[in-house]
């Protein structure tokens, strides 16, 4: 081996050993910095992709857009009114909880975010969204849509963050099944992808008589996901020697979502 090659190998190994010595926190900070660098490129790419898709799908007629706009305005007003009512109810609920010396429940703040990149890896199911720490997002915050749970934030840069989808094996959600006392843990499988999500609900009783179509909600245990968010529907229930396992179809179509909400400030 030539001397210069030997020196190069030595320097290379030293640098790799230095990286191996990084603590998880330092690694996450480094990942966040790199995500911050690449995020503008991903955002521009995402906008370009949307423009191309929009061009291909064609422009909607003006009157169609006008009608849609009117409908959306009415819907927005209704939602604002509902939101005000619910805020009043939340305040009243907290007041009553205080009176009963219960822990006060904080209200959620939803940060709307747009997906700028979908998972490009083989074994991990993640997406990147265009909101980060500048918008109050922190790691391990729940991400959802109006249809149900999407996942949780992992690496958070200033202007973007990575979301681990619920179809990933590493994303576990404590869950309950509608109409039963059954509690378990929902997570993806190793072969699961956003396009072909494969969720299982484990640690159920063998006697649990679950029927296809029953809703599965987050139970709030574990501290990351709030209680009562729809995770999916039971597809099948199997009894195994030690436990019951249900196959769950996610409530959200993870391969086609474009916008999500990140639950900040009180999500935990």
């Amino acid at each position, binding site marked *: 081996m030539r001397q*210069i*090659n030997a*020196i*190069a*190998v030595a*320097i*290379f190994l030293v*640098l*790799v050993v230095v*990286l*191996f010595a*990084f603590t*998880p926190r330092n*690694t*996450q900070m*480094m*990942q966040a910095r*790199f*995500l911050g660098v*690449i995020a503008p*490129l*991903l955002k521009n*790419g*995402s906008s370009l*992709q949307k423009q191309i898709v929009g061009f291909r799908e064609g422009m909607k007629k003006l009157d169609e857009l006008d009608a849609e706009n009117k409908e959306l305005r009415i819907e927005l007003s209704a939602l604002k009114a509902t939101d005000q009512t619910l805020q009043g109810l939340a305040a009243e609920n907290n007041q009553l909880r205080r009176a009963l010396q219960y822990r006060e429940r904080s209200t959620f703040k939803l940060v709307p975010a747009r997906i700028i*990149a*979908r998972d*490009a*890896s*083989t*074994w*991990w199911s*993640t997406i*990147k969204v265009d909101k980060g720490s500048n918008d109050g997002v922190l*790691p391990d915050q729940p991400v959802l849509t109006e249809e149900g749970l999407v996942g949780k934030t*992992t*690496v958070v840069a200033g202007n973007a963050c990575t979301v*681990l989808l619920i179809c990933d*094996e*590493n994303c576990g959600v404590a869950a309950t099944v509608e109409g039963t006392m059954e509690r378990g843990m929902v997570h993806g499988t*190793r*072969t699961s*992808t956003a*396009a*072909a999500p494969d969720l299982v609900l484990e640690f159920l009783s063998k006697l649990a008589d679950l029927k296809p179509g029953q809703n599965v909600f987050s139970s709030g245990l574990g501290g990351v996901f709030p209680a009562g968010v729809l995770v999916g529907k039971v597809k099948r229930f199997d009894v195994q020697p030690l436990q019951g396992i249900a196959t769950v179809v996610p409530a959200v179509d993870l391969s086609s979502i474009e916008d999500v909400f990140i639950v900040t400030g009180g999500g935990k």
Partner: protein
Amino acid sequence: MIYIYLILAEFFSLAFQEYLPPLPYGARVLLLPLVFFYAALAVPPPGMLFLAFTGGFMWDALIATQMVDGTLEISLGWSIILFAVLGAIMNGFRPLFQRGHGWEMHCLLSGPLISIFVLSEYLMITFRRGGFLFPKIIWLRIGWEGLAAMIVSPFVFLVLHWLALSFGLIPPREEREASLE
């Protein structure tokens, strides 16, 4: 200059890769390793190690290193080692690249090397998560990624090589051949 060019190529390929649609069985087109394999043919061993470091670092920073319950599933740096090992195999065929048979070598080796890369990643997560699971879909996914890499590699090679030659970043074939003698 060639190194700046190749680092930029690695960076942009990583971003572009995010927009490529998934293939059957959840397989993906992995552009960054393809760009790195071109680099492994185009530069000498110390340069290849440098680009393995930058490419592997980007791969780990954006894709492979996942935080699970406060711990890292795969430590930052494993992809760098994988890139270096696979790059060393590709770099061994550099004399053929210098004789003008670069795209053939890039095409033939990219498929198996990317399949090895993806399999290695799977083995690492299997080791970490437990459960030695190897259903058919895993092999199909690994195979499809290798096949996709072989299909895409001539285009990646031609674009990178044409740009490198146009900007005078690598010498023309005659000079490269002469340097071998």
